[in-house]
């Protein structure tokens, strides 16, 4: 039993090695809990109370009320789910494509490499947000999976380049050569020699893909190009904008809550990558 506590303590020391990264991790966990567990705890306030418009935060309304007297805090709690799900999905799709194509490109070499890199270059050059805006005008993005899919498919080039560079450098390393000399087979080389060394890269790129996905989807929803209903953070921003909440002094909480939620989540994700760097690269750590 003591070894369990020992490994727990070691894990805790590992996680807190980088202070900022740990705070980032706490932030990410907080938002995940808020968005996925929160809706079961805090009911969505849909009642219009005309006498309580734009109230400042109080003990009853933790973040104040919006233009129809509804509680902002409950909206924030219910609003994170769509954003996070799209972010995770898009990041996952993007990273998977990037790992597959990047490794293929690096290991196959020759014209395959050139073709994939040329394709990546072209997709990279097309400005992502205008393309998304134009696509949104032509295709109805009314479901979460479709949006995540399009976002993932458009953001793979940057990661592919990085993964390819990483695989290229790893391919020449001694342990790969040793594995080849021992005739351990290609599958073993890929899965047990190259991939574990790239985990930090992959994890960090996954998180950056997520931040990019959040930027794009909130932007699209804010402009009203994606017909999402509900109270996700982007929709809150869009409603606040169209109701003129920006220009009224009392509605500060209505506009700032989703802004703060999105900004804090992005910050947590980015800080978390610092922690991931240290966890996955034991050479950076001096103890533990």
């Amino acid at each position, binding site marked *: 039993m003591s070894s369990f506590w020992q490994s727990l303590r070691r894990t805790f020391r590992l996680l807190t090695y980088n202070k900022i990264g740990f705070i980032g991790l706490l932030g990410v966990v907080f938002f995940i809990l808020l968005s996925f567990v929160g809706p079961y705890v805090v009911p969505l306030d849909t009642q219009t109370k005309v006498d309580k418009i734009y109230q400042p935060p109080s003990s009853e309304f933790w973040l104040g009320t919006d233009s129809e007297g509804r509680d902002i805090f409950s909206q924030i709690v219910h609003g994170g789910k769509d954003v996070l799900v799209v972010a995770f999905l898009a990041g996952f799709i993007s990273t998977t494509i990037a790992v597959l194509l990047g490794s293929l490109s690096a290991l196959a070499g020759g014209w395959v490499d050139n073709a994939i890199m040329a394709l990546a*270059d*072209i997709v*990279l*050059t*097309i*400005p*992502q*947000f*205008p*393309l998304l*805006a*134009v*696509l*949104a*005008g*032509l*295709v109805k993005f009314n479901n979460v999976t479709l949006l995540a899919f399009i976002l993932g498919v458009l953001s793979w080039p940057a990661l592919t380049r990085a993964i390819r560079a990483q695989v290229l450098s790893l391919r020449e390393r001694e342990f790969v050569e040793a594995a080849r000399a021992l005739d351990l087979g290609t599958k073993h080389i890929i899965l047990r020699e190259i991939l574990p060394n790239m985990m930090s890269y992959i994890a960090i790129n996954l998180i950056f893909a997520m*931040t990019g996905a*959040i*930027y794009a989807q*909130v*932007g699209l929803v*804010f*402009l*009203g*190009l994606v017909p999402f209903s509900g109270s996700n953070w982007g929709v809150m*921003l869009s409603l606040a904008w169209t109701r003129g909440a*920006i*220009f*009224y*002094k009392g509605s*500060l909480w209505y*506009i*700032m809550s989703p*802004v703060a939620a*999105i*900004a804090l989540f*992005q*910050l947590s*994700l*980015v800080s978390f990558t610092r922690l991931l760097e240290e966890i996955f690269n034991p050479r950076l750590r001096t103890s533990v």
Partner: protein
Amino acid sequence: MTTTSLAQPTPSSRFDVWYWLRRLARNYILRRILMALAKIFVVVTLTFFIVRLMPTNPIEAYINELIDQYGFTYQEARDQAAALYGIDLEASLWEQYLEYMKNLVQGDLGTSYRSKGTPVAKMIGKFLPWTLFSVGVSLLISFTFGMLLGMIMAYRRGSVLDHALTTVASIFSSIPNYLVGMMILVFLGVQWKIFPITKMRGAMSPGVKPEFSWTFIKDIFYHATMPILTYVLTTIGGWMLAMKSNTINTLGEDYVTVAKARGLNEGRIITAYVGRNASLPLFTQLAISIGFIVGGSALIEFIFVYQGVGQLLLNSINYRDYPVMQGVFLVITIAVILANFLAEFVYGWLDPRIRVQ
């Protein structure tokens, strides 16, 4: 027994096409030009097919609308659509494509659907300079100050200034730029009343004539302040951190140590030795960031009601003005490709090692 081989013609006695082709292919500038042209070609083709092959084919939708709402006959509706989009609907897809390319090369991007009769190229010409102005100025400020601050941070590593600037840089570069713009509007504009935001909307004040006068120049900078502030705040962090890490790496190089040992003036070391080598990798990143800024400009221009090309794109999407949408997207992408090419050109000019490959 000796073998003899056929005498090869000496290189000087015939024009060796392959030799010159190989030399051309190795030329950095030429390769970049060809790649830029190839990219433009791909984007043009892509735009053409996106509009035609999407589920809601805008041309068909327009034809249907003309028939339903305006009582056109099918033939008249088709002719109208063909005129608007600048294509001949009778022809096969391939011939339509060639017609489209021919029009493009002549600068004809079709006519707007909503503002009937206005050529798309003219609309773009009215809005594009503002985007180029705001984005260009921001990039200039962000890049130069980012480099300077980055170098200062590297020289004063570990100091309070370093930590403070790093934190601020990290925070501002993680937050989406339109959120920063909104925060500027809300806090600086409404809550603390530092900026008179109602007067600063738009690109120009009404009544100011666009000419090369001091009033005009002052005016356009006044109106562009908030967009430029947003762009600079969100991008300067990246430049600062990149420059700082590059400078730290360069400071560890041998030639810097030798320069110091030779007793060179510190100022000269900073500019000619450290500065030049540390800032070189940043130029490749400049190319990527141009694309990102131009792409993100749509949102910023929306927030600050700035009449740039991004706002034109968004309006055309909202009003389903397909010719304008197509044209603006094309122009934005081509602008990004050209800017990338320019950045790569500057990089090739600055770094002699690239040219000698």
